[in-house]
């Protein structure tokens, strides 16, 4: 049984430090992307995330950029969001409670929750970065995009779990 998104919503914060909740995801598809301000790969994905957000623009899909590292400061996160033009809304997850609900291990890593609030997909954004030093010139599989499309259609995601590549979230616990 997949966990329900943000059932308790403990410890999620706005950039102003207020405790908040990612609004009820029931009826909507919720996309989370876990990021670290010191991880170059997440930044490199900003234009691709922008493209995906644009493709699914509208109230049916909501994008949240989740920053789990409690040692980061809000100004760093704000400037990363604006300089790189990340889509969606930035929130902080200092207790890594959302990280755990999404089963995320890496920055950048994406998670998609369906209209019923169930975790449908978590893992890489696409398959461009295969391993250290092994990078495809172009991605061949657009995992996140495919997962959102499946979630909107109410279908199961073909590959519900992939290994994301980047900086480990365990290191900042």
């Amino acid at each position, binding site marked *: 049984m997949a966990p329900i998104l943000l059932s308790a919503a403990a410890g999620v914060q706005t950039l102003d430090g207020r405790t908040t909740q990612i609004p009820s995801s029931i009826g909507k598809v919720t996309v989370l992307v876990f990021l670290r301000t010191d991880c170059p790969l997440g*930044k490199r994905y900003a234009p*691709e995330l922008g493209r995906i957000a644009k493709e699914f623009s509208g109230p049916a899909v909501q994008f949240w950029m989740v920053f789990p590292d409690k040692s980061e400061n809000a100004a760093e996160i704000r400037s990363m969001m604006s300089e*790189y033009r990340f889509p969606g809304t930035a929130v902080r997850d200092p207790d890594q409670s959302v990280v755990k609900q999404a089963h995320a291990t890496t920055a950048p890593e994406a998670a998609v929750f369906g209209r019923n609030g169930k975790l449908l997909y978590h893992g890489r954004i696409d398959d461009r970065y295969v391993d250290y030093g092994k990078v495809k*010139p172009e991605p061949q599989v657009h995992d996140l995009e495919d997962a959102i499309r499946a979630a909107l259609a109410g279908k199961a995601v073909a590959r519900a779990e992939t290994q994301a590549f980047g900086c480990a979230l365990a290191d900042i616990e």
Partner: protein
Amino acid sequence: MIGAPLNGATFYRDVAPIIYRHCSACHQPGQPAPFSLLTYDDAKRHASQIARVTKARYMPPWLPEHGYGDFADEQRLSAAEIQTIAAWVAAGAPEGDPRDAPSKPEILGDGWRLGKPDLVLQAGEPLRVPAQSGDIFWNFTFRPRLTQTRYVRGIEIRPGGGAALVHHANLLIDRTHSTDLLEARRGAGFAGMELTIDRNPFDPPSHFLFWKPGSTPHFEEQGFAWRLDPGNVLVLNTHLQPSGKPEEVRPEIALYFTGQTPSRFPLLVELENDDALGIPAGARDFQVSDDFTLPMDVDVQAIYPHAHYLGKRLEAYATLPDGKRVWLIRIPDWNFDWQAVYRYKEPVFLPKGSVVSMRFSYDNSAANVRNPNQPPKRVQAGNRAGDEMAHLWLQLLPRGRGDRRRELEEAVERHRAEKNPDNFTAHLNLGALLLSRLKTQEAIDELETALKLNGASAEAHDMLGSALRSVGRAQEAIAQFRAALEIEPAYVEARYNLAVSLARAGDLQNAIRNFRLVIKAFPNDSRLRNEWGELLAGSGDLSGALEEFQIAVRLDPANRDAAKNRDWVLARQAGQ
């Protein structure tokens, strides 16, 4: 030496010495790595990543296999060091006792690392890198304003831009203005992964001027300075990867001069076999080779293997006359992104008659994730990222006195023309080299061969004209210059050669007509103005000649010939 305590490894005692020594030079603010590794907190924040990348030997980036060439600045962790890091991470990355800490890593700061430069150059125009794109290959140009020849004993390249934007950069010296036409505007720079600069046979390339993340700038050893003449253009060939946001990149170069003229003359020698690169789609281990026999004793100073994204295993070795094999380099898993020039700790001596061998293999299968074509397709040599290359550059210092570069270069060019009998460029280059070595008859033969392969080359016609003129075949020379100009009317060098040849043959009227076009192209060249004046004087136009001599002196007050000519005309006019 660092031990490998499998239990109880701490940051300060066991891991900091490794990280400070091998990582911190790049992993600090202002340096190319994307995050800092200067403190315990820095390392802790990336601990499991550090364990993974060191175990995979992705970091520190170092491609050559240990034991196949002994290189300076080897950035390679020992097995024990990798184990120490793994044990530390497995134990939860404990901090340990700060009293165990080694001395802190050097903070490089903003200054030039070689000290105060004699000249700092900035790229003519910045490059705007988009937030997202494939790899970018861009050539920045620099035009040092020199009034006299300088000898450069060191350079420092600052690629500029954000972290990790520039992956590598090669500085090339354009002594022949062959890149001028590639720029939309002076200083605008131009796109291109590989660039061909016409060689000046009298001053062929001699030094690797290379930058990669983490490279330490150095001064050349005594006697190894290289010359930079007024008018030379410096071209920085760069490989960039976008960072995720739009950035501006405007590299800077610091030059350090010396008053000592060079006394050691290395040559960059290229083994290659691009013509053999017809790699079938799906081929997993396509092999390409080249073998060059050394015509003299040399010391190998440095090596630079180069392939694109299909390159798999890159090897080079020498077979000595007694049959012994000396490894020069072995890269078991080539990665274009981390290409580098490798300098030997001690120069590798190779006696005359040694055979230097290049053995490269390529993976053009779908299993090669870097393959630019999915599904794979047949790939040939070329300058785009999707094409391939098989190049092995060596910096060779001939033993013996003086500048023996052209002697060595002749052997290289002969080898290339023999290897590729149908390759126009190989014969053209050999012809040019022979011409510069005053082996004129042989040069004529090579250039005629070149023209048989490509009769549409203005350059080959012009060069053959020069060769014919120097053996007194004036009319044939004039015909060749005319042929060059028919193909390329704006070819100023051929126009000049034609004008001079016509003047010598007594056809002053046509000589003047052609020389006028040369002056139009180079109005500010003092030497040409003076020659133009001489031609006018020869045709009886003394007042026109005087004007030219005066312009020539104004352009270059040190032009003594022009001053003498001017005074001669003035004296004649006064005497009348």
